[in-house]
């Protein structure tokens, strides 16, 4: 069972207290964009076997959305951070890079 720390209220809890929300940092394409871009935004996912940035909601706690970096091949949680950002914090990327030298990086 995953153990996550909510960056909004600071509580560390098991995954039953949280609700997963899919891939993070998706760039939104709305009306006026091309069909390909809109399809990509709605459906195409990285779904990597390895480091994954994703959204979670502290559903049975403070109720806030936040983001997490987690390894889908080992279930290791590298860290969580607030959702008010368009990219992961530099120190989290450095931490993952140190643990996973072969990781291609966030893009």
């Amino acid at each position, binding site marked *: 069972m995953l153990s996550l720390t909510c960056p909004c209220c600071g509580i560390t809890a098991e995954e039953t207290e949280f609700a997963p929300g899919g891939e993070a940092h998706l760039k939104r394409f709305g009306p006026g964009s091309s069909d390909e871009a809109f399809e990509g935004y709605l459906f195409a996912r990285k779904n990597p*076997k390895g480091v994954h940035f994703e959204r979670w909601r502290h559903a049975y706690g403070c109720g806030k959305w936040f983001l997490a970096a987690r390894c889908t091949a080992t279930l290791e949680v590298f860290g969580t951070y607030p959702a008010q950002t368009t990219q992961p914090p530099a120190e989290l990327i450095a931490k993952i890079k140190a643990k996973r030298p072969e990781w291609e990086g966030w893009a």
Partner: protein
Amino acid sequence: MKRYSIFAVAREAMRYHAGWERAWRSPTPKKRYKVIVVGAGGHGLATAYYLGKVHGIRDVAVIEKGWLGGGNTGRNTTIIRSNYLQDPSAAIYEKARALYEGLSQDLNYNVMFSPRGLLMLGQTEHEVRGYKRTVHANRLQGIATEWIGPERVKELVPIINIAGPRYPVLGALYQARGGTARHDAVAWGYARACSAMGMDIIQKCEVTGIRTEGGKVQGVSTTQGEIDCEQLAVVVAGHSSVMAEMAGFRLPIESVALQAWVSEPIKPCMDVVVMANTVHGYMSQSDKGEMVIGGGTDGFNNYTQRGSWHHVEETTRALVETFPIISRLKMLRQWGGIVDMTGDRSPILSKTPVEGIFVNCGWGTGGFKSIPGSGYAMAELMARGHSPLAAEFGLERFREGRFIDESVAAGVAH
């Protein structure tokens, strides 16, 4: 290949069973094949089998990074049904179910298809309405299903508690020719038949890269060297996105864990398959006597083939309410598999942006039941460039908004 028959059993009984052949050869890969199928699970082997049997394409290699049938083919709850709402789904799942009926004879391998009947319980008014609608749709599609009341449910499943306090059984969607089959035997039977047609099944051979040139596939790099091909079928549930990345495109797929578990064996007590989608559990009894139980998927991406503990607890708790006699059963084994989930919960059988590469993926939580139909349609798509069964399941449906929305129709459990 020597045929299996009662005479073969009698002959071998007279000579200490020394004459049985290996069911399939384990050759070293050739430099080039017409078709390479990646993934020796049920779907991959069925694709190869129907390529050879129906379309006469026998220069085929099926390569597998682990062992044959070691992925989801060996990890499912073996349920077979075709009571889907949407026409394209009903067509391909019914094709599969119909092929299962004669599969043991076709393959000369006993896949133990057991059309014991399948019930999908209606436990809320919503579900009752939904399933009645499915029955009407099935009637138009030519699939034999019926709506039965709670008394008939109790007759078919004496151990069920139809007056549960939270979720009483209000009736069920009944498919009399649904049931189960022996999952390993399906993979083994197809493998034996493919090998007998001269196809190469190469195990412990992982694809590490896909070579393309000018937007056309050239071959694959594997842990056993480079292999060239004209056509490549990617049939690797769970790892479809990983393979797509190697080929340079992206799929509308997320990989999540789905779990199943079995109890200790008990005397025969339930001779149908029961699915309870409101409480998220399904159960059948294996020929060994174990109660085979499946639950829901996790919500987060996962490649570890193990799921979250709380799903086991939730599903078992729900089933105990519906089947009080299982409350003292000990659970024997639990395992997980990685399934491909698409946005509309329907599969993808499609050409891809790379010429010569085809994908068969996205079967989500319901792949086993569709193995023969999926292989049949995929082989037709690859050999003829078009398959009526696969036509609606193309990748372009996501861009064009033509979903085959089974996430609402079928309930979440497959």
